[in-house]
């Protein structure tokens, strides 16, 4: 089974490093979450894994292959897909086209259609609005597009950065259910979320980042009972 391990990762923007010697393991078939205050470097870690902010030091081993230095599209092609922070829909394309782009690397159109049907099932609103330009959708609707698009790839590893931002409580719940269901299909998940309680409820293992360093790690239960973590992230 597929396995991602980040070892001694250091990287950042311009002259400053944001992450310092970060190591994490994403166990195959499991949901691993990363918690941390804003600016802790969670998104940077994800960008680094995806090759958008390439590592300056350290390795990112994916099925034994070092992803450090590879181009993003090659990383994606190796079976990783992503729901990026801030939705990032293609504003001048329709919802349907956005979703289709999620399965860009899948050439079999029957498969694409099948997955599209599944996404529409999860988010009926997207089916209603298949022809609307994604840029004109409401904030939460765009989040749905982004999540749906990420699901279209059906990768080995799905990397998710704050998916429930701007979603209504109903959909936040739905969203966590979806992640659990996806995981049940055998897809490994790396999840970044602010909603610590619900995140830990579905995760198997978690890391807490603080100022670019791993501050704590453990199983979901361990973290949930960690006092520091509770104080910082639970209400």
């Amino acid at each position, binding site marked *: 089974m597929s396995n991602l391990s980040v070892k001694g990762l250091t990287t950042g923007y311009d002259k400053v490093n944001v992450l310092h010697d970060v190591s994490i393991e994403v166990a195959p078939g499991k949901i691993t979450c990363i918690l941390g*205050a*804003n*600016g802790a470097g969670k998104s940077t870690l994800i960008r680094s894994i995806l090759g958008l902010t390439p590592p300056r030091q350290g390795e990112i081993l994916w099925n034994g292959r070092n992803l450090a230095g590879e181009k993003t599209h090659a990383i994606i092609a190796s079976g990783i897909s992503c729901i990026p922070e*801030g939705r990032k829909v293609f504003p001048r394309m329709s919802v349907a086209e956005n979703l289709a782009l999620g399965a860009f690397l899948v050439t079999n159109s029957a498969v694409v259609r099948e997955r599209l049907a599944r996404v529409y099932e999860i988010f009926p*609103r997207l089916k209603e609005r298949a022809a*609307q330009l994604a840029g*004109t*959708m*409401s*904030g*939460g*609707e765009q*989040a*749905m597009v982004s999540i749906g698009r990420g699901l279209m790839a059906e990768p080995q590893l799905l990397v998710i950065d*704050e998916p429930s*931002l*701007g*979603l*209504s*409580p*109903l*959909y*936040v*719940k*739905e969203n966590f259910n979806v992640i659990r269901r996806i995981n049940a299909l055998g897809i490994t998940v790396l999840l970044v979320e*602010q909603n*610590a309680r619900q995140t830990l409820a579905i995760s198997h293992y978690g890391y807490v980042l603080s100022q670019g360093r791993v501050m704590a790690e453990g199983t979901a239960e361990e973290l949930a009972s960690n006092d520091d973590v509770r104080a*910082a*992230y*639970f*209400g």
Partner: protein
Amino acid sequence: MSAIMETEMHAASMGSSTATSLVSARDLTMRFGGLTALDQLNLHIVEGEVLGLLGPNGSGKTTFFNVLTGLYKASSGSIIYQGREVIGQTPQEIYRSGVARTFQRSRLSLPLTVFDNIVIGDYQHMQHGLFFNLFRRKAFRAEYDAYVAKVEALLHIFSPPLVARMFEPVETFSMIDRRRIEVCRALLSEPRLLLLDEPSAGMTHDETEALMDDILQVRNKLSNLTVVLIEHEMNVIKRITDRCIVFNYGKKIAEGTYAEITADPNVQTAYLGEDE
């Protein structure tokens, strides 16, 4: 004339007999092509309250803000603010009558500094004359210094570390800081009506709490500030709102205190999810 009386009566009939309504929308409809984002919406906002605006994604909350601030022109219906019809006024005019807002998707001028972004919030009180700006540099300096002090004070409430970085471009700040900056920009002109569109999105629990405390703190200073808050985080709604209105498909489906609306079965199915 009669419009005002009607709204007053409307407000009275809703139970808050002593309060006057600052904004009242009547039969407000906004269509985008075939899509009806606001559908015959009726609501009123009471002077001085903190009102929570809730509703499923795409139910028209942001659109309501956009219509109220003049960015979109409603297809039909009316909004009376302080006795004047809002629809048809330019965003500039509406701003000058004391309405300030933040955006769901942050809209700051990224290459400009924090100070620049915030100070523009008080555009209406700045001196715009070319002569003043270009030739009366001493007087300008005095006005500038006053603004620096004002912005510093405001930033100090929301995030003291930002004060030291006041002259750095906004693009180097994290999303959350940008949100805070946006809130400061909206507050600088001491508006009567403050519209906040999901200000806490992406913040951790602690951060959200701090932000809300700060907003309340400012509100207490400005005696008659009315706040309308769009928010999906129910803890926030519970803590700071006096009253809530719930939208669905562009219509108002519920109204009342936090306790009242969360108990409403309609709201539960449409918005919160059944098992709450």
